């Protein structure tokens, strides 16, 4: 493979990985605190719409991203209210969230942007002086848009915070052994709620990444499974933010490769290539989950405190 093709492939892989990676990091925090949110797919969809809407109305993609973060936080809070406060089945609440966000994004889209299709102001790749001009590593590592670097910084920060800070320790305690955390004076439900809201925020940003940095428009139901791939990345990444980002890069690579394979082999039905990332998720999940020791033990189990609340 000549190096122009390789450079293009790797640069695209990084670019295509980040929407999944950002959402997956948020899900790591939520799951480490013990709350499963299968509604990531829906929140990303809402974020994708809000990102496009905010970017079009203000002319600034960052306004769209901020709006998507706020919408994602609100959706996370809704899941938190049901999963943590009301202690309903977390999977069912997450499924309801998917349906709700599918409705919200499509409904609001048809009332606003859908009436007069407009181009979405997009984030552009940065040019970091001489670094961006280096062969291969230049375009791959130093020519991405700002949100990519924000995502990598976030992964580093979260990995550090989970391991090295009291708050991180408390979050992990809420997910591993909520009764012990409770006995130690940690307000389990408050920590869990906060983490779900944080997870929702990142899912919103991950969705906005799709509409303002990757595809640069909004299409109804445009997330097409990336939210579930993000949840799979949490498993592959062993519930570690950096590991999760690495797993997302694997899917970015699969996506970038399948798009190229479609043009290299036009005689093969393109659908065969489109399914590759999904099949990769199934195969990887089957191989990795068998050794699943990193699963937070309190995951998806509501915690009922014995203390009078």
């Amino acid at each position, binding site marked *: 493979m000549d190096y122009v093709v390789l450079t293009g492939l790797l640069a695209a892989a990084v670019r295509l990985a980040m929407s999944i990676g950002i959402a997956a990091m948020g899900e790591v925090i939520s799951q480490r605190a013990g709350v*499963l949110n*299968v509604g990531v*797919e829906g929140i990303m969809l809402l974020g994708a719409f809000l990102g496009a809407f905010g970017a079009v109305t203000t002319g600034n993609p960052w306004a769209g991203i901020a709006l998507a973060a706020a919408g994602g936080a609100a959706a996370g809070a809704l899941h938190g209210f*049901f999963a943590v*406060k*009301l*202690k*309903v*089945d977390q*999977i*069912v*609440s997450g*499924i*309801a*969230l*998917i*349906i*709700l966000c*599918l*409705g*919200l*994004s*499509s*409904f*609001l889209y*048809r*009332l606003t942007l859908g009436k007069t299709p407009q181009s979405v102001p997009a984030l552009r790749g940065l040019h970091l002086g001489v670094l961006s001009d280096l062969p291969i590593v230049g375009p791959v590592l130093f020519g991405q848009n700002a949100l990519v670097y924000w995502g990598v910084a976030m992964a580093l920060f979260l990995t550090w915070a989970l391991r090295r800070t009291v708050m991180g320790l408390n979050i992990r305690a809420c997910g591993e052994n909520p009764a012990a955390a409770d006995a130690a004076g940690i307000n389990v439900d408050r920590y869990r709620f906060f983490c779900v809201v944080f997870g929702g925020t990142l899912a919103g940003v991950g969705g906005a990444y799709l509409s303002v940095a990757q595809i640069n428009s909004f299409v*109804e139901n445009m997330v*097409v*499974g990336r939210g*579930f*791939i993000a*949840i*799979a990345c949490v*498993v592959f990444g062993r519930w570690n933010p950096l590991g999760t980002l690495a797993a997302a890069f694997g899917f970015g690579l699969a996506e970038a490769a399948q798009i190229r394979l479609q043009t290299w082999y036009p005689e093969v*039905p393109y*659908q*065969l290539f*489109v*399914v590759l990332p*999904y*099949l990769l*998720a*199934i195969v990887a*999940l*089957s*191989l990795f*989950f*068998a050794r*699943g*020791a990193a*699963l937070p033990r309190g*995951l*998806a*189990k*509501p915690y*009922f405190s014995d203390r009078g609340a």
Partner: protein
Amino acid sequence: MKANSALPLTAIVVCAVAVPSLFVLLAGKNPVDTWFLLLSYTLGTRAGFAEVVVHAIPLIFIGLGVCIAFRAGIFNIGGDGQLICGAVVAVGAAPYLAGMGQAGLPAFLLLGFLGGAALGALVGWLRARFGSNEIIVTIMMNYVALQLLAWVIRGPLQEPTHIFPRSYRIAGDLQLQLLFEGTRIHAGLLIAALMVVFVYVLLLRANLGFKLQTFGQSPGAASYAGIGATSVTVGSMLLSGGFAGLAGAVEVSGLYQKLEDNFADGFGLAAIAVALMARLNPLLLPLPALLFGIFYVGSGALQRELGVPFPIVWIVEAVVILAFLASGAVKAAPVGVKGS
């Protein structure tokens, strides 16, 4: 588990009505007119109610499958993919069934069941063998099935002129009869009713139901009682996928006569809500299925008559599911994520 009646019922009902109304206002329409039209069209007109019944049929089939898997503690949210798989297998075999006379239609439906069952069993096997989370696997399978459909209607099963992205039409004797003149209600309704009773007996009156329930509540206790994890997981997913596949064959046979992109789209998630609202009881399943039919057909009427965007249907559905969750009326299912 503790009952979760944290919210008063009146507050829940008010929210369930108010939230969709808010979005109707946002669309610049009058909520009172909107609710009136939704209910009067679906319940007050023959054409509207007939469409509600037509929409409820696949929801009942897929919902039955969801009930079966759920009782074993498995979340099958791959109803859409299994539906497609069943329909593709049945339509693929249709040319060979056309000359079979009376036996053709039952064979067509059986092949639909088997197509969905194969996909379901694969998911069950992956979970039993590798502990793969079935929620993610079934969703991934949905997207794979969508691409399979996209391929076959442009490739091996394409209509004879090879111009349009749709399959050939199935022969007349493979089509389910219409039950009522002037409506689209087909004999699939009778099969659905039959299957409701069959699954009820299977789950609540037969040994299988006991096995699923025991396994769903405590896999450890089940293995102590000699109930094998692999056979229950694969078996329940096989049946679960089978009913979704049957839904696909029935939809083709009773309504569409051919495969197209996005045919019978979006039943999978709704069927989960339907099964939960029926508290996993097959006999209650038709009621929430009809309710979701009302939302779907009613939203279509809102779009046509008032210009309220159709996606309001998902907002209404989600609000109703959340309202049920808040009221504590949805039976808490065993947690689906297990390292096993």
